[in-house]
Structure formats: structure tokens, C-alpha cells
């Protein structure tokens, strides 16, 4: 059974939402990424969303773009990221979802990339710039390989598209809570509950909410209505803060930050 499905089944029995931290692979370096994933698991994170750096991300805000840029400046390659995941699989079975631009997937070839991802131990992929209409091929390849393709729904998504997307998504459904780009905001928009309820009428698949969730309080609010809470930019900012500190200090502090978000989410 796919590790993502298994995780959501366990959480369903416990009646707890999943906490899903997002970090960029290779920021500040690949060793730190590996340590952070292990630290997050120890603090109770359920699934890891791992960003594969891209030079021209359009779905991400300035914090994540800067993080991608830092990783690319150091010469990070997809092969290194997959090697890190392979190595990590000897230490942890936490589900890992790769967030990757279609520009990279297209270049490496959908089939070749999905096979490499599965071999490395990735459980799912989100491809934010690949709409459901364009990805027949990758869905087919992924289904054959038991890699989940996680799709997005935005507040701008029409009912017709919601139908299409809820039928396509695998593992879970990624709900973009704020219209626009990723990044920390002070308040969550009111339409979240409304849209999530609408989606729940269409599908039984777990719904995780991301984009704009940044504080413990927001995580708690979202955890009450969705099966998963995704936090990205706020964690990247913590990493940035300790970037020039010793490795252990960075892991400890960012780990603590994630620990608090986990408590908030599960609270």
C-alpha cells in the first residue's frame, strides 16, 4: 500500500489531521534537508512535501523562490535529491511528496521521471503548473507505478473543474487556501470552510490545505476543517533565519518550530 494512503488511514482512525511541512531540497544544503526530514518526523510531522528547486517558479511566492534560488546557486541537481531520498528510505518510512515544476518533468520525460521518483522512494508528486487536462500521460504512468499525483483546487476553481479534479487526484487533494501565491498571511479567508464542504460532497479523498497557512493558530483552525495542513513559507523563513548558524542549531530550532505547528494542527 502506498505510504500516503496508509498514513491517512491511520490518521482517520485517530481522528487527527495530518501535518505536512514543506521544505526545499538543497536549501541550505542537501545534508540539512535530510536531517530536517528526520527531525520533522520526530516532532510528529505526518507527510513531507519536498520542493524540487526550479529557476522560474510561477506558483510560488518570493520566500520559496528565494529558497529555490539558493539551492540552485549551490548547484543542486534532481539526481542528488533522489539519491538523498533513497538514502533516507533506510532510516524512515514517512511519506514524501515531491513538488516539481512540469518544466523539469517534461525535460526528464514523464515516464523516466516517475520511475526514478518511485525507485528513490517518493510516494507522490504535485506538479503545480500541470492542469488536469494536460496530464493524461503522467496519470497513466503514475497509476502503473503506484506514485500518487496530487492535484490542486483553488478558490477560483469552478464547480465543473472541481468535479474533474476530484476525480483525478490521488493520495489527497491539495486545496489552495488563498487566491494567489504561497506565503505567510495574517488571516485566513472565510471561504475555506465553504469550499472544503463543497469538495467533501464530491469526494472522500483527504483534503489538505496549503498556501498561506503560517501560524500555529491558523494551523489549528485549518486542522478542524481539513484532513491535512501544509505549511511552507513560514518554515522556509525559519530555515533562512538560522542559515548561517551551526547545522545542529538550525535543525533544533526549525524542528521546534515544526513541533509547535504539529501541536497546533492536532490540537
Amino acid at each position, binding site marked *: 500500500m502506498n505510504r500516503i494512503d496508509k498514513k491517512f488511514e491511520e490518521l482517520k482512525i485517530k481522528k487527527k489531521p495530518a501535518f505536512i511541512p514543506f521544505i526545499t531540497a538543497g536549501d541550505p544544503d542537501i545534508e540539512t534537508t535530510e536531517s530536517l526530514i528526520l527531525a520533522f518526523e520526530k516532532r510528529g510531522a505526518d507527510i513531507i512535501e519536498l520542493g524540487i528547486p526550479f529557476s522560474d517558479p510561477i506558483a510560488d511566492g518570493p520566500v520559496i523562490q528565494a529558497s529555490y534560488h539558493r539551492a540552485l546557486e549551490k548547484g543542486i541537481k534532481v539526481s542528488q535529491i533522489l539519491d538523498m531520498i533513497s538514502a533516507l528510505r533506510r532510516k524512515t518510512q514517512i511519506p514524501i511528496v515531491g513538488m516539481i515544476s512540469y518544466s*523539469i518533468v517534461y525535460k526528464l520525460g514523464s515516464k523516466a521521471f516517475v520511475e526514478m521518483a518511485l525507485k528513490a522512494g517518493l510516494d507522490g508528486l504535485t506538479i503545480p503548473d500541470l492542469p488536469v487536462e494536460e496530464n493524461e500521460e503522467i496519470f497513466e504512468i503514475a497509476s502503473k507505478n503506484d506514485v500518487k499525483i496530487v492535484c490542486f483546487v483553488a478558490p477560483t476553481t*469552478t464547480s465543473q473543474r472541481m468535479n474533474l479534479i476530484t476525480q483525478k487526484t490521488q493520495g489527497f487533494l491539495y486545496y489552495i487556501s488563498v487566491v494567489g501565491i504561497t506565503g505567510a498571511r495574517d488571516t485566513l479567508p472565510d471561504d475555506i470552510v465553504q469550499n472544503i464542504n463543497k469538495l467533501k460532497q464530491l469526494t472522500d479523498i483527504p483534503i489538505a490545505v496549503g498556501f498561506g497557512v503560517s501560524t500555529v493558530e491558523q494551523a489549528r483552525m485549518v486542522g478542524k476543517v481539513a484532513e491535512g495542513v501544509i505549511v511552507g513559507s513560514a518554515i522556509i523563513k525559519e530555515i533562512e533565519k538560522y542559515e548561517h548558524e551551526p547545522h545542529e542549531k538550525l535543525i533544533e530550532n526549525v524542528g521546534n518550530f515544526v513541533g509547535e505547528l504539529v501541536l497546533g494542527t492536532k490540537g
Partner: protein
Amino acid sequence: MGITTTKTKTFDYERLSETDSFSAKMGHFGRFGGKFVPETIMPALDQLEQAYNEAKNDPAFNAELEYYLREYVGRPSTLYYAERLTKKLAGAKIYFKREDLNHTGAHKINNTIGQILLALRMGKKRIIAETGAGQHGVATATAAAMFGIQCDVYMGEEDMRRQALNVFRMKLLGATVIPVVSGSKTLKDATNEALRDWMGSVKDTHYIIGSVVGPHPYPTMVRDFQLVIGREARKQIVEKENRLPDYLIACVGGGSNSIGLFHPFIADKEVKMIGVEAGGLGNEIGQHASTLTSGKIGVLHGSVSYVLQDDEGQTLPVHSISAGLDYPGVGPEHSYLKDIGRADYVSITDEEAVNAFQECARLEGIIPALEASHAIAYTMKLAPTLDKNKLIIICLSGSGDKDSFEVAKKLGYTI
């Protein structure tokens, strides 16, 4: 009449695309094009596509567009016989399609007028745009001022430095110019930022893309608004020479002036079409912006096309003296024309372009944009090899007034 034949033959071209898995819905040109964007803006693209399809079949919309192109832009632009250049090169007869004579000094305004009319039709309250050389930004700010609609233009900091005059013009026209400091601080980064803005503002904002790039329906829609270049040129050359030209030559950055000139001639196999890219300083990575001549197929800014990328799909740095050509992607329809062998693409270096810029000024009393200077430079190589009875039309896509500072610097003048 030429126009009637164009219509029938354009249809043939589209049927040709259909056999090659053309999907009107997602805007594919063979294996190129598509709609590779975040879900957040998918509904806006659907809305835009629908609104555009309705508008283009609405006689009232077309009449309004024609009115503004005639009365405000000053169309039709002339097809001018470049007699002294022709004599100097002693080969084919050269005509300039004078898009530099348009209001704001470039072809970009054909598209911005069309898209603003569409935005107003959709009830949008704000316009955003990206700009490289600033010509599209100025054309957008101009049309926005004329229609009284708020306008924000994203521009790379590097381009703002190179095109300070256009930055000032946009501000004069009441637009806000937002400096982009991410990445290479040029056109591609301005495009990223504009797309991001749109993801958060899509409800009341229309994004005017300045070239035939980006997700569907932009490559098709922007092309349609630029078809006026080729349609006029076709009619004018038949009036003057009583036949079609042998060559069409235009510069290609994103590729909007070139596709506008080429498209009405696509079905006329005897008309050769040559797109001229920025060869910059040389063939090394980061030294040029020759996407079609040295790039590989990839995805950038929402569509599959030739792209300058590394082997993992990361965008490579590009260079051109011309800010309007300094872009690592190209319109998907050009990629398609290249693949089916209908158009040829070549490149011209910074130095050759600057030389053509000066030659054109001295011989014709026309200071061409650095972008268009690439097309002139290639013509200067080609024309002498051709017979005197051959006809060439160059798209003189814009005026070079905006480039005077950059060229002066390159030539060692201090202004």
C-alpha cells in the same frame, strides 16, 4: 482579392495542424503550445478564451478595434521601398513594413489596443503587463491611459536601467512601473512576477501578455491582433509589385511581429519566411538568446516550445543588446513552423545588429529599433546573394529612438 485567398489558405494551415494532433481547446500547435499554469489561473484563461472567441466573431468588437487602429494608432502603416539600402546591397528589392510609424513607435500597440478592448468587455478594472524593452509596457500604458483604466507594468531592474526613457514614458502615461529584482532581472523574471500578480488578482485584473508566448489562448490571441501587419503588407505588395514577395524577414524574441507578418502568407509556399534571433556576443551559454536556433524543446511560462534550458529543465541565462529579444523562450507557433519546415530561423550578433542600426539610419534616414536591426542585418547578408527581381519585406517592428543611449554607449559616445 488577396484577403479572401488568405482566409481560405489559413484554414488549410490549421487543417494541417489538426492532422498533427491540433487541439483547439488547449491551444496546441502540433506538440507545442498548451496551458501549463497553476490551477488558480486556469479559470481565468478559460474565461479569457471564451470572451475572445465571442469578441472576434462580433462585428461590433472588430469595428471598434479597426476604429482605434485607424484613428489612434495611425494604421495602415506604410510599406516603404528602401531604395538606398536596396542599391547599396545591389541584390533583391527591399521593402520595410513601417511598424515604427505606429503611435508609440512599435507594433506592440496593435495587441494592447485589442486586449484592452477585450478586458473592458470582460469588465476588468485593472491591467497588468510585463515588459522587456519597454515597448510593450509603453503600448500598454498608452492604451490604458486612453481608456482610463489602472495599469501596473512589471519590468526587470536590468531592463529599467537599459531602457530608462521608456520607464519615464510609462510613468508619464500614468502607469506604475514595478521593478523586478528576482532572477536575471530581465523579461523572463518580469513575466514570472506578472503571472504571480495575476494569480492573486485574477478576479478584476486582466494580464496583457505582449508577445505570442504564455499559455493558451495568448499565443493565438496575440497573433490574431498582430495579423494586421501581414494582411496590410500582403495587400500593399500586391498593389506595388503585382505579386507576392519572395522573402519575409522579421526579428524573433517572443515572436509577435514576425508571426503577425508571416501568418497571412503561410499557405503561400513560394514565400520564404525567415525569423532572426539574437545571437548576442557568441555561441556560449549566456551569451545569446537564440532559442529556435540553439534551444531544445521544453516548457516555460505556460507552453511547450523551444527553450534555452539545461538538461534538467532549468532556464539558462540569455543575453542580447536588444532588451526586446533577451528572452529564453519563443512563441509555440514559431516552434511549430520550424518543425514543419515552413519558416527558417537564423541569428545575428549584437555587433551585426548595431552595424545595421547605423547603416539604416545613414542610408534611409530611419533609426530602427535594435530588435528590427537584427532583421535588417540578416537582410544585409541575404539581399546581395539574390537576384534583382526578388522581393524582400522586412518588418521594421519599431523605432530605435529608445535604443539611442544603449547604442551610443556601445559606440563609445557619452550623452
